[in-house]
């Protein structure tokens, strides 16, 4: 599903990612972890085509991203669900309209939009909140609206950047259970998180980044074991 080959992303003289090679299979649920500045966000931005790699090759869903030009980026992004730490909801419209946005973009018929938005809201447990404005919701609920918006277009790949960054442990776990349910129905997930305690308990593959390099991987053979992280003396 995701294939990275010798990816380097350089900002000025600083390499956010260095010669990173990794694969994520279809149907997998993987966590990307590491301290802040390790390159987690950069990795997700490259996959979302928010940024381009300085060197290397990325293939997502059999598409070589280098071959996707400016004009084809929107079409590419419609096939990927994205969840953000700050939800990125639009505060001038209600929950329903926020979740409907990806379908409106693709020109889906009104009735079909109603059906699919309610199905997505049902999955995140917010079916009765569709008329509410986002600011009247709690942070956890806002994040679930963001997740409903990410899945309403039925993507095969969902990427999430610190989706539980602003949530307390209980709500965080709730969100992770939600992601697991999507994974159960075949959605591939890549979730960036620095919450080692939370993801340690999930028993999924963990990709550990350190200073833009692959520092290690921990598989599901040791679900609750400690994640190996190379300690580095302060660095960017």
């Amino acid at each position, binding site marked *: 599903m995701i294939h990275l080959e010798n990816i380097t992303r350089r900002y000025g003289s600083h390499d956010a990612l260095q010669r990173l090679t990794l694969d994520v299979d279809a149907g997998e649920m993987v966590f990307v972890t590491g301290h802040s500045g390790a390159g987690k966000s950069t990795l997700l931005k490259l996959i979302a085509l*928010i940024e381009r790699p300085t060197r290397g090759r990325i293939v997502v869903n059999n598409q070589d991203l280098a071959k996707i030009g400016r004009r084809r980026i*929107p079409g590419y*992004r419609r096939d990927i669900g994205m969840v953000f730490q700050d939800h990125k909801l639009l505060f*001038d419209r209600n929950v329903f309209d926020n979740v409907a946005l990806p379908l409106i973009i693709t*020109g*889906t018929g*009104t009735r079909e939009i109603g059906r699919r938005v309610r199905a997505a809201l049902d999955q995140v447990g917010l079916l009765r909140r569709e008329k509410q404005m986002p600011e009247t919701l709690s942070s956890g609920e806002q994040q679930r609206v963001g997740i409903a918006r990410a899945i309403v277009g039925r993507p095969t790949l969902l990427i999430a950047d610190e989706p539980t960054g602003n949530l307390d442990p209980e709500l965080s776990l709730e969100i992770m259970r939600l992601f697991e349910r999507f994974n159960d129905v075949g959605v591939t997930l890549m979730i960036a998180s620095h919450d080692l305690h939370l993801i340690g308990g999930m028993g999924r593959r963990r990709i550990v980044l350190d200073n833009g390099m692959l520092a290690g991987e921990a598989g599901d053979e040791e679900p609750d074991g400690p994640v190996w992280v190379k300690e580095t003396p302060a660095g960017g």
Partner: protein
Amino acid sequence: MAERGRSGGLSAWFARHGETAVASLGRLARQPLSTLLTVLVIAITLALPAGLHLGVKNAGRLSGGWEGAVDFSVYLQTGTGESDARRLAAIIESRADVERVEFISAADALDDFKAGSGFGDALDALDDNPLPHTLVVRPAVAGNDALIELLREELVNLPETDLVQLDTAWVQRFNAALDLIRQVILISAVLLAAAVVIVIGNTIRLDIQNRRDEIVVTKLIGASAGFIRRPFLYAGLWYGIGGGLLALALVGVSLWLTADGVARLAGLYGSGFRLSGLDWRESLIVLGTGAFLGWFGSWFAAARHMRRIEPR
């Protein structure tokens, strides 16, 4: 476009456009003061050339009312008999470019001259009438200098003609002045159109900056440039249409305010002249121009500024 193809079809596409148009209008209505100011600026900018055009149009009608000034006086050769002269008058009158011909016989002319000049006795001493028969020809093509000139040439070339007089100099000057004013209006209209584009472009630019976050989010979700641009284009269109409508109102009110003055002035000249307003075609041009400039201004702003707003 792929946008349209997915599952909704054409009717959904139209529905989306309708929704976007209404939503854009609603957004403008929620900021009535700033919307009104923008629309007012556009209206004044559109009303200026429209009003000037109306002035020239009415002046043109006025000069058309003075068509008597372009009568030709055709003096025939002194040897021409009266019956021949009358026949010639009939022939000329039958031309398509001639409205009517007045025949003044040499005898009538002499009587008039005797009565009017005070030389009656001196003229009585003459054996022969020295005056020729005269045809006063009124062209049916008033205002068209080229056709009038053509008519004049043909009259000059008639074998019976001695002299053709046409006092058109002042009419030509007047028409030339109107032409010049028309050109000035055209130039100013182009400049003012540019002003409308700039005003709307700037308004839309601010709008785009205010909605930066929204644009970023919709881009992240996979909205095409066209989708993101659409509400701004409709906003520009509404500004333009609103400005056009208000411009028509401004012109109408100005006309109403000046109507009495014009009527009084015309009355002093013994004329029933009344100002005419913009006809439906001209009104449509004002509206259409406003709509187009609004759309174009916002498209221009969107093309320039939206590209720079990218997710980071």
